[in-house]
């Protein structure tokens, strides 16, 4: 047993660091990046420079298979990439196209669909949003009611999608719709289709969440005509495709590197915050809360590496992988919460953008971002399978209950 990277991986790590140094200038690091990242036309220049460099180096979609423009990196190399880019605060490609749709396309879609969509996802020129959740179908996704009826060579789609991140700037939406209402199991009769957001009948309404500017929406679909060639795979089999996606286990889901950075920022904040003539970092009871979360994070890092080591050897991730999201989100929420605690009274001001632009921050510069991150961070245990749903899954799949 050891925790060392081998010489090949160390060399790869150097290569990645050199690339980051050239493509993501140091002055941009540490700056808050657009959380949903990588929307065309909305990026600051240094972010655009980064994405261009990624595409030029053919490193924009490292998780994809080589034949579709990905890489042949080993799981450890992918892990190193995730860690290094997170540690440098590099903006990430929007996950919807790259991580959520593309694996469905290169696994199940026709050649025509692949050729039409994969290149523009790879270079980030076309943005996608995910049409899964509905007002009545959150954790219980299979209850979805959005209806698609075949009419000649088109589906006529009617329904409402919600919590749709980035719908207001997306070009396309991948969508789960019900094509058969008379099935024995609710998971049957669901189809996976691709909808052009410019289609008549698609309407996007903003939903404002805690701590964020506008990112999520509800999308109403009224008599939207979708060409049948936009069906992915077979009709009524969409659930299988969407579910298959969930088995694309990613170690990055634990967010260890991001939490390590946040933890360092928290310690810096405590060291810079005055209290009783000294600083907060001298307050044992506060520091012990930081130390306690650091221990949890150390354990999670090793849990992640254990998963990685198994995958590296060609095995399926072991049961320990199921706790990566559960613990990772718990830890990042805890760190975010402690940052707000460190801010004291300056965790309260919530100035609008205009006031910030004209008069600058109120209190420490990091106060508003920390507060927003804490508020927004509450979503992490809700989306992507809530903590409670994750525990149901572990109870069933791992413990056999």
């Amino acid at each position: 047993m050891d925790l060392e990277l081998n010489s090949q991986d160390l060399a790869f790590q150097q290569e990645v660091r050199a690339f980051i140094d050239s493509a993501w200038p140091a002055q941009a690091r540490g700056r808050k990046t657009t959380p949903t990242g990588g929307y065309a036309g909305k990026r600051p220049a240094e972010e655009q420079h980064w994405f261009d460099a990624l595409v030029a180096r053919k490193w924009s979609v490292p998780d994809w298979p080589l034949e579709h423009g990905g890489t042949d990196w080993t799981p450890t190399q992918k892990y190193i990439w995730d860690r290094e880019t997170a540690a440098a605060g590099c903006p990430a490609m929007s996950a919807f196209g790259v991580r959520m749709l593309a694996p469905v396309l290169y696994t199940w879609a026709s050649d025509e669909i692949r050729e039409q969509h994969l290149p523009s996802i790879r270079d980030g020129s076309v943005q996608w949003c995910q049409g899964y959740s509905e007002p009545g179908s959150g954790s219980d996704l299979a209850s979805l009611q959005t209806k698609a009826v075949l009419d000649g060579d088109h589906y006529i789609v009617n329904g409402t999608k919600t919590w749709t991140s980035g719908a207001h700037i997306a070009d396309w939406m991948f969508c789960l719709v019900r094509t058969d209402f008379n099935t024995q199991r609710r998971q049957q009769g669901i189809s996976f289709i691709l909808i052009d957001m410019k289609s008549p009948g698609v309407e996007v309404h903003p939903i404002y969440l805690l701590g964020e500017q506008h990112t999520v929406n509800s999308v109403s679909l009224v008599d939207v005509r979708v060409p049948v060639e936009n069906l992915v795979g077979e009709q009524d089999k969409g659930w299988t495709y969407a579910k298959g996606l969930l088995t694309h286990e990613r170690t990055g889901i634990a967010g260890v590197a991001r939490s390590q950075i946040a933890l360092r920022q928290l310690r810096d904040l405590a060291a810079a915050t005055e209290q009783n003539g000294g600083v907060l970092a001298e307050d044992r009871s506060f520091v012990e809360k930081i130390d306690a979360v650091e221990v949890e994070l150390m354990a999670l890092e090793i849990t992640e590496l254990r998963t990685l080591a198994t995958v590296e050897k060609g095995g399926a991730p072991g049961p320990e992988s199921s706790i990566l999201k559960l613990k990772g989100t718990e830890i990042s929420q805890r760190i975010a919460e402690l940052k707000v605690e460190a801010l004291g009274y300056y965790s309260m001001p919530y100035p609008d953008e205009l006031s910030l632009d004209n008069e600058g921050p109120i209190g420490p510069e990091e106060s508003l971002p920390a507060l927003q991150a804490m508020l927004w961070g509450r979503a992490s245990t809700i989306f992507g399978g809530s903590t409670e749903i994750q525990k149901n899954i572990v109870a069933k799949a791992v413990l056999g209950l």
Partner: protein
Amino acid sequence: MDFSFTDEQNLLQESVARFIQNDYDFETRQKNCSESAGFNAGNWSTFAELGWLGVPFSEEDGGFGGSAVDTMILMEQFGKGLVVEPFLPSVIMAGGALKAGGNAEQKEKLLGGIIDGSVQGAFAYAEPQSRYNLADVTTSAVAEGDSFKLNGHKAVVLNAQNADIIIVSARTSGAQRDEAGISVFVVDANALGVSRRDYPTVDGLRASEVVLENVSVPGSDLLGTLDEGFAVVEQVIDEAILAIGAEAVGAMEVLYKNTVEYCKTREQFGQPIGKFQVLQHRMVDMFMEHEQSKSILFMAAIRLDEGYGPVAQKAVSALKVQLGKSARFVGQSAVQLHGGMGMTEELNIGHYFKRLTSILTLFGNADFHLKRFGRL
């Protein structure tokens, strides 16, 4: 980066697991506890024959390897069986002190006996007032010619009643809580002036209050350098924490798995109670705490094998902090989910809980180690 075991390590794990499986069911364990020595002498011979008593020592010292990972593998299995044989106090602690502080002659004379099972040891480091501070030593050792005269009271000394040698930390200079000025001595357990009050501990082991009154110890039985014994004590305790950490991880695995099995069969309200979501989520939490503890145990073992120093010490303290949360939660939840049965002396669950509770205290609780973690 590698979390796999070597072939030899796999063999060791299999052989200990087989022993627990075949020769150490819960009933047998309870019988072993009630022996007058507090353990089964036949098992001790078996351990010696199988080479297990030499696991923590290098080949140079007559052992079988000496890696922390080896010790971890063995102790995790012992944890699953709630083994009461005094491997921890005799081999890990007394043997560990000889390993860390002993000169060639002392190792020659005593370590061989520890490894072949003919010598039983104990490690007397704590005192009634010391709590977890290893430097808080009032037991005195005063040089008199070629020997030292020891006086003091050592608290909760595991396995003292069976020990041939008791390794004692004593103050040879400095103030009560100074790290400098502590020396470590090998004391003949039958020496004049050594008296004990023996008792069982809550987890079925044996310990003693050991009082030293004008005990004369030859200068040749000083272990390591005069006044510099603290380093020996600290290393022994850190290695012992890894051992009980592994034991705890083994015990936690048994607890969460047994609890899952129990909840699948126990029926209330017309269905297995494992169907109730509130219990399912609690069991998922137990599973997660076990896995997280296992991860940090691996880290601590790896760090110890990289070399003893602040990085290893910090990892060991992190392990103890993690256990403070995880072992407590898993132990308490296992009792809770077994309901009234979990409360009985008859069922094994409560005995695992008691052992875990002792482990939480042993060598410093989570509060103590959280502070140490912060300092390191």
